[in-house]
């Protein structure tokens, strides 16, 4: 780990000022400290933002508002989260471990770095870590990598389960920066790698995530998160799906779907959603729609199985929405 200085911000303004001058925010530290120890992250100045009043969880109108510093565990356990947006609670407890969920903030969760072994290895080329150095995964081992949204420069998947749920639920986020406040869909936080994989998100210098707004939909209570992996817990997703359905009169009126483990960012599945509208919620309809998820898939040698696994995961997640009590 490289040496750094540590300061504690007492106000959002203080934090933004420091960040504008090049400092990095730290909250739970579960990603940042880990990557600093690997020297993948090399901040010279850290701003501890845990004292900022951004951990509140409440309801505004019909929207759930989650403060950026709320901890994963607290959000998952919050009665209003469980009542209004059970998908968020489910995606959270499927992630990481109880200890990490006690530590990790919502803002930090959304800004997690990618899961690519070469990204963590300073002795391997990685365009994300060192622009222009090459991608070790493309010709190397990439079975855990993305099949959607990839480029010739990067294949790494975004690891957040929560982000998949939020993207499915049309959540928006509020950020504060030197130029003031901005609101935008969580989906727009993430960039595709393209030829600039070192740029992962759309935050401007000095911007701080304040909170996340999740609008209620008729589909919100009929929503499930399915995470497919080799062991039952404490593992990143091979493939995951967040599914929410609004069914009326035996027909799907609205659908919300997103996938994890397959895209270079949390992957909204709009074509699948559209194909479901007006259909009876049965397996043939789910299967027909889910096939559309992999239309644009670009698998490589070792991750071809995800092309098969993704539609199956979507079908199963859609079925599970019918198992909600």
């Amino acid at each position: 780990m490289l040496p750094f200085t540590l300061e504690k911000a007492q106000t959002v303004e203080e934090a933004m000022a420091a960040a504008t001058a090049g400092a990095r925010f730290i909250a739970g530290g579960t990603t940042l400290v880990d990557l600093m120890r690997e020297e993948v992250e090399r901040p010279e100045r850290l701003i501890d933002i845990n004292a900022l009043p951004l951990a509140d969880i409440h309801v505004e109108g019909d929207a759930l508002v989650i403060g950026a510093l709320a901890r994963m565990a607290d959000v998952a356990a919050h009665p209003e989260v469980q009542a209004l947006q059970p998908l968020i609670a489910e995606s959270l407890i499927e992630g990481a471990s109880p200890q990490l969920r006690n530590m990790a903030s919502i803002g930090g969760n959304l800004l997690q770095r990618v899961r690519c072994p070469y990204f963590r290895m300073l002795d391997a080329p990685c365009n994300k870590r060192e622009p222009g150095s090459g991608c070790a995964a493309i010709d190397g081992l990439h079975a855990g990598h993305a099949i959607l949204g990839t480029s010739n420069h990067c294949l790494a998947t975004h690891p957040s389960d929560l982000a998949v749920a939020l993207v499915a639920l049309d959540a928006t986020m509020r950020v504060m920066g030197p130029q003031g406040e901005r609101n935008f869909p969580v989906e727009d936080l993430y960039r595709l790698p393209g030829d600039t994989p070192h740029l992962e998100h759309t935050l401007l210098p000095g911007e701080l995530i304040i909170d996340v707004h999740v609008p209620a939909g008729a589909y919100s209570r009929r929503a499930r998160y399915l995470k497919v992996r080799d062991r039952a817990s404490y593992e990143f997703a091979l493939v995951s799906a967040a599914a929410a359905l609004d069914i009326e009169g035996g027909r799907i009126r609205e659908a919300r779907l997103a996938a994890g483990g397959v895209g270079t960012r949390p992957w909204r599945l709009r074509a699948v959603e559209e194909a479901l509208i007006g259909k009876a919620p049965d397996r043939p309809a789910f299967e027909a729609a889910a096939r559309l998820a992999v239309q644009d898939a670009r698998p490589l040698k070792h991750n071809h199985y995800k092309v098969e696994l993704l539609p199956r995961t979507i079908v199963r997640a859609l079925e599970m929405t019918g198992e909600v009590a």
Partner: protein
Amino acid sequence: MTTSVIGKPLPRVDGRAKVTGGARYAADFNQPGQVYAVIVSATVGLGRIAGIDSAMAESMPGIIAVITHQNAPRLPYGEHKSYIDPAVGERLHVLQDDRVRFYGQPVAIVVADTPDRAERAASALEVVYEAERPTVDPSDPTVTPIVPEAAAGHADTSRGDADGRLAGAPVKIDQIYEIARENHNPMEPHATIAAWSGDRLTLWSKSQFVVNEQAEIAAIFGIPAGNVQVICPFIGGAFGTSLRTWPHVTLAAMAARQTGRAVKLVLTRKQMFFTTGHRPRTLQRVALGATADGKLTSLLHEGSGETSRYEQFTEALTSASGYMYSCPNVRTQYRLRQLDIGTPNHMRGPGEASGIFALECALDELSYVLGLDPVELRRRNEPEIDESENKPFSSRSLMKCYELAAGHFGWSRRAPEPRSMRDGRLLIGMGMASATYPAYHAPSSARVRLLPDGTAEVAVAASDMGPGTYTSMTQVAAETLGLPMDQVRFSLGSSDFPPAPSHGGSWTMASVGSAIRAACIAVQEKAARQAVADQRLPVFGAALDAIEWTDGRLRRPGDLSAGQSYGEVVSSLGAPIEAEASSQRDKDAAERYSMHSFGAVFVEVAVDPDVGTIRVRRAVGAYGIGRVVNPRLAASQCTGGMIGGIGMALMERTVLDPRDGRPVNAHMADYLVPVNLDIPRLEAYFVEEVDPHVNPLGVKGLGEIALVGMAPAVANAVFHATGKRVRTLPIRIEDVLTA
């Protein structure tokens, strides 16, 4: 005997130390003035170091030393080879030349006053390599399998005409099985704290074989073994990885000598995948020929394991195929494939775990071809004797194991047809496999001291990596001496104690236990001899064969008086009474009998037909392991072995990048082992078995067989659930996705 404690389910004597944080593992022995060493690992897979620029690293804050091959002392590396080392080849000589033999080989060591500063400087050290492309894939066409030199005699075995009979067999199976490289990944990383005092060295070091580590480090540094003490009272799991003394121990001692400070060196989790051994990747062919009613007529087992270029690591990959079943025509072949990797080593159930996977899956395949129940197929091929050696088994309870485990499992409820059982949407599969492991007994010594307060101290340079050596050995001593458990203090884990064999191969109970029993008997004799010469004691003048120790008291047989306690005898004599004794296998028994543990494992899996997830739902094992010293610890060890087997079957795999040999998943989040939620109900049963031949305690060993058999039982259950035969471990989601 009223005080009998062998066979009792007693709690661990070291339990309190372990639940309070009081148990001290190697890295817990902080020393005054201690500094921290970090290894710099090679970032190429083959080649040479063209240059190292230490200047920047040396100038960083807190840096005490940067040691590379350029400035490292030339160490004597005197000859030393234990049975735990490969018989052919020479250990890695660390920092002695510019060669890089495999990815992750140590190329430098940085010592600093804090761990963070040492890590930073290690990362900043500039090393320039001339790199070549390593060969790390055992099936690379350039790799020619070789006959292991040390095992040349039994690398090939044959009886009858296996190949000829296979060709003409009415029913046959001929398949290839593969097992991935696995790393032991104990929770405790390898760690050594080294401190010199003049030419004497103390090592607090994670080791399953402290007396060998003592001798090896002494040979490497060219000092008398008596100048080295190795201390390791607790091992945080090892499963074989700490049997050998790996390069980091030498590096810690070297750094301590160069800096004149006590040096703590702990491997990173990533480095645990480089230089501390692994279960070798194996390729195996098993071919079975049988009559239509399921009698084996031919058995072929050809296997090869990977090894390094500098040592020939061998294990008993094919040996169980010679004695497991009755078959007149058997041929086995064992080969090595030399690669640019670090040397593999023994990992829980070495050899047998891999070989039995292939054999037991092949038997299962044959059962379906024959339309015969897999248990019944095995029953029909149960041998009368060990046909590979033409000797009777000292004990073999495999039929009883099938019966016991199948009964508890409810095997009779299994529908024979694959993919025919369901629970809701889930596909249910039931599979079984046999297990075996040799019942070894290695020479060991032990020392017992009787103290005036009536207690006894027992010491052996043995180890306890978790099975409960502290507890079971205390039981043996308490039983033999006729003392309550809390009157016996057992110490292990110091090279100053009487020598024990390596803590592995399931032989600790047999070897160390028998030595302790012998030492207890010896100290009783010595005490009796002294007592009859002591005028102050009632037994004065008695003939030695006219008195005996019963329930911890010395008296004449039939004497209803209290007799004399150890404390009374010792107090009267005025000094502790001490005896040392050793034990080894009876040569005659070894010549007359074939000695093995046997077991049977039954497993139920559920496979999600949509997304391919495979979960073990329950498992039942039954084992014939001779006498069970502590059923409570034994059951825990068995279920632990089953869990290790679940990992082997469904999760564990170290993947090397073929371009430079780097382990790509050298991380606990990427090298998967089972977590709590993966573990279903597990049951272990023991067949009543008396084996008077193996050793005086009648124990056959448990640690290895607890894992052997689990992986094939899971694989066979996966086939039964899905109809898809997967012959490669680990079995993963994509393997069954399109079943």
